[in-house]
């Protein structure tokens, strides 16, 4: 009965590799997000999709490419991984975008370590 799930939970990989992180929500929400949390715990938004359409695209290297096959899934593919990509990546969902006071539900995070 997990609301927002992410896979994998841990990801250790070499510099230069390409990897994907997957996210699924079973809440029936229209909007999904990817956040990056660095070692200082700062949580920064990367992307947001509403009904499979990209609506927020922060200043993120184009090595990061989100993809939403349907409104319940939002995946993140990272090409040519760099040391600075090491962080915890959180997926989140929200019922819509018309009210930013709506609750965001976060997944458990994917801990990425690039060696």
């Amino acid at each position, binding site marked *: 009965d997990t609301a927002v799930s992410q896979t994998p939970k841990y990801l250790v990989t070499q510099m230069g590799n390409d990897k994907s992180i997957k996210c699924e929500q079973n809440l029936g929400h229209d909007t999904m997000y990817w956040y990056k949390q660095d070692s200082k715990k700062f949580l920064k938004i990367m992307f947001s999709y509403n009904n499979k359409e990209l609506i927020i695209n922060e200043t993120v290297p184009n090595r990061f490419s989100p993809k939403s096959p349907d409104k319940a899934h939002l995946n993140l593919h990272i090409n040519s991984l760099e040391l600075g990509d090491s962080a915890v990546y959180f997926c989140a969902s929200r019922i819509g975008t018309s*009210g930013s006071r709506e609750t965001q539900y976060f997944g458990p995070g994917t801990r990425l370590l690039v060696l």
Partner: protein
Amino acid sequence: TQLLEQSPQFLSIQEGENLTVYCNSSSVFSSLQWYRQEPGEGPVLLVTVVTGGEVKKLKRLTFQFGDARKDSSLHITAAQTGDTGLYLCAGALPYNTNAGKSTFGDGTTLTVKP
């Protein structure tokens, strides 16, 4: 430039003490949320404040939104070890400027010792 600044960044207190965490900005927000994040987990919403001057209580936690909607505070009375965690505030700019994006503060790490 950090849009939302939280203070203090780290706080270590004894069980039973009171504490206040602050979230400040020069921007006006349409709403502000407080989250708590435990180690190894994602943030979990505690409260949303919308109206300037609004005060909300959640058991021993009291949240206040500044009159000008630029700042907020979280006060915990008689802290317990279970309150330990990272507290994050998140402000939402008006929808027509940001498509419902929330900007997070830099967090306050609270440790409550038994």
